[in-house]
């Protein structure tokens, strides 16, 4: 791709001549159709007001720019008086920037600012009057809770920052902004609590973000390979994407770092540990005994979702002696009637289940339900009746599928691991399962993100952190001793 003309004038300073400035701006933007230039004369001074169609609010433009300027025109001021009024005495907008170069001018125009250029003044006043269409704060869809907060991040960076700030009204909460993406010039914000998050990690993240050479950054996934230090080495990700501000604030309080991306409702939290996937905000609304029970259910669900189909296949095929006699007879009767070995049946059903799940996700909600009915009831029932698959195996698949929905953040890892364990169990019995388990443990243990082990606080052992892993620490206890993700 050839270098755009815009890149050549990025560092060029604004000229004193208005016409030249307008010509350069137009040419830099390639005479784009959405550039609005309104020329007016105030006293004897030629002015131009620049904005991008749809990015700036017409109403704010009229109220905050045109109206004060036209009323000021009655005084017939000189160019210097106008610029002095705009710079020092005007309260037209809360977000006001004085710009001297074309690069910043164009960047601000594309961010929804209106720029006021005056003849014989080599500067521009940019006013933040953003008016682009944006989604309002709504209920989180991917991370549902029963009693937690109901708001979620949106696609607008500033809104997301305010959602965090509203919950953490402390000067220790700090936001740092940077821009990533050669074409998208996406605003990225790093939020952290000073004294809780490691300064070294913050600097490292900032460096990594600034070294990204991507053209566009359109969602959190674009940044993950750059921020995740074990992205290609592990099946698990030590970064979490959240759309819940309350989750983000809890993580910030634990010394984690939040990366907010403009244009994406998913914000990245890092570094996260394996146990974070088993915690929800609901745990902190329930009594500790129930929260602990709920956590154990989630751990059990993870094991079921990953291991159950593989174990079932291995036991049925190679180690049937472990089943109690009655169960063994039932299983034998069911399996003898099917034409395929259990490993093939299991793989077929698992792939079929994934296809139906994918279809359910992509289709509109009204049709998604129909897919479940077709898949779950009709195909499942027909498969058993026709003798293609055995009934116990269908039960195992159903249990596994349900268990995997308990942990949405681990779903990609669970899906792949499940297939690996089915293949390992189907071809090597429990020996295969043992080898696959060893590899899985190696893989989990190898994830180390910004000095925090993924298996922390269990390995390496941090006794204070453990209380919030297997049970839910009480608020009095949390108030007495606060632990962060990097604490020893």
């Amino acid at each position, binding site marked *: 791709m050839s270098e755009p003309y815009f890149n050549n004038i990025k560092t060029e300073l604004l000229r004193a001549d208005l016409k030249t400035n307008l010509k350069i701006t137009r040419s830099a933007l390639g005479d784009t159709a959405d550039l609005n230039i309104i020329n007016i004369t105030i006293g004897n001074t030629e002015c131009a007001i620049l904005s991008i169609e749809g990015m700036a609010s017409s109403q704010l433009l009229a109220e905050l720019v045109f109206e004060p300027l036209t009323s000021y025109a009655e005084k017939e001021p000189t160019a210097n008086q106008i610029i002095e009024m705009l710079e020092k005495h005007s309260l037209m907008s809360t977000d006001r920037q004085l710009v001297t170069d074309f690069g910043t001018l164009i960047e601000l125009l594309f961010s929804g600012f209106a720029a006021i250029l005056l003849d014989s003044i080599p500067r521009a006043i940019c006013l933040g009057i953003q008016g682009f269409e944006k989604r309002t704060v709504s209920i989180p869809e991917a991370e549902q809770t029963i009693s937690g907060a109901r708001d979620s991040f949106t696609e607008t960076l500033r809104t997301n920052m305010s959602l965090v700030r509203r919950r953490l009204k402390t000067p220790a909460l700090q936001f740092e902004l940077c821009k990533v993406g050669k074409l998208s010039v996406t605003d990225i914000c790093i939020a952290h609590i000073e004294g809780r998050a490691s300064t070294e990690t913050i600097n490292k993240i900032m460096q990594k973000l600034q070294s990204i050479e991507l053209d566009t950054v359109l969602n959190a996934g674009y940044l993950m390979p750059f921020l995740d230090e074990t992205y290609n080495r592990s099946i698990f990700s030590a970064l979490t994407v959240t759309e819940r501000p309350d989750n983000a604030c809890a993580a910030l309080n634990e010394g984690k770092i939040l990366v907010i991306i403009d244009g994406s409702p998913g914000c990245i939290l890092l570094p996260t540990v394996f146990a974070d996937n088993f915690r929800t905000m609901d745990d902190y609304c329930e009594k500790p005994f129930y929260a602990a029970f709920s956590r154990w259910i989630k751990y059990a669900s993870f094991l079921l979702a990953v291991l159950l189909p593989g174990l079932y296949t291995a036991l049925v095929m190679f*180690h049937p*002696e472990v089943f109690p006699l009655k169960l063994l007879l039932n299983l034998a009767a069911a399996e003898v009637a099917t034409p395929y070995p259990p490993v093939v049946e299991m793989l077929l059903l698992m792939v079929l289940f994934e296809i139906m799940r994918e279809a359910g996700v992509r289709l509109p909600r009204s049709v998604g339900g129909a897919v479940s009915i077709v898949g779950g009831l009709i195909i499942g029932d027909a498969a058993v009746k026709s003798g293609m698959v055995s009934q116990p195996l269908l039960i195992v698949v159903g249990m596994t599928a349900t268990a995997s929905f308990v942990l949405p953040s681990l779903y990609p890892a669970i899906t792949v691991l499940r297939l690996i364990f089915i293949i390992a169990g189907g071809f090597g019995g429990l020996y*295969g*399962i043992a080898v696959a388990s*060893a590899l899985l443990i190696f893989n989990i243990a190898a994830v180390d993100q910004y000095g925090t*082990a993924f298996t922390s606080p269990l390995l*390496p052992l941090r006794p204070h952190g453990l209380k919030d892993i297997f049970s839910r620490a009480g608020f009095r206890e949390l108030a007495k001793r606060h632990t962060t993700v990097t604490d020893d």
Partner: protein
Amino acid sequence: MTKQKISPAALICLLLCARCFTTMTLFPVGITGGLTYMTGALISTVLQAFLLIPAAKLAARTRKDPCTLTFNQSKNFGKAVTLTFLLYFIYEAFRDIGDLAYFTDYFFAVNMTRVMTVLCIVLAAVYGARLSISVLGRTARITFAGVIIMLAIIAAGAADDMEITRFDYAVNNLPAEIAKAAYAEFSRCECLALFCFLTSEIDGDPEKTAKRYLISKGTIITIIAAMVTSVLGTFAFAEKLPVFTLAAASENLITERSDAVFLLIWVMTGIVKLTTLLYCSARCLRLLRPATSHIGSVLFAGLLPTAAALPLLLGYGWEKVIYSPRPVAPIIVLALLIPAFLLIVHQKPATESEV
């Protein structure tokens, strides 16, 4: 990049996994009774406490492994010591691979040839050995927790069949039998050489670690021996995979037998042991040939024992290796003599920068 350290607890678990694998695979041959074996194991453990003193003191003083220290003394001496360690680790890896493949084939009807069994286990171990020692430590801790859970399940299921009289107290020549058991137990302690090699990498006190390791080792071996011999009696010493035989008789509310749990954990301890041996072998190889890449050295370390074990496994000659006596001399040389010599040489306390 800073060198990754391992916690004392993780090193203890790593060594315990290695030791448990050997104990669970086969009890020493020719021992007359459970009580004799347990007494011998405990006496052997006490003796090992004296044996490990030089290695622990050396690690505490220098924070370097014996191979690096000998290389600092003299290049040729360093090469000789490193080669001795390497050969011993490869020999142990050879036995580990062979035992895993042979017993898996012998006891568990899996749909795999011996070549496939060996390949699976070696590739898994190579994958693990190319990671850092801290990762091995974390894996070992999880695996050792599995060992404890497995033993609890088996013990709970076989509790009805346990009888203290099966320890068989009647022995003709008690001192000789106990000495034999202590010697047999000592010859199976390849973990002492591993301790000597790895103890410099811990972020704690090596002397305390040695003490805790030996106490844990003595306890776990006694527990395993007590569990098995209280059910199987003297037959435990004639059985291959004695814990498997016990697990097969252990019933619980969910399963008829617990041998599946045993297989799962036994293979995992085998993998942890093999991974540790390959990790140490690879480090020795890199000391001998610094130009070797990390992955290259691990692959080579995996290839040597595999190539040695496969012909015996395929030719059905592994039985001879199983019952062949384990050499004691390398353990004494590697875990006692070399560290003792280096300790004498390094009488001077290490400077701040060395630590």
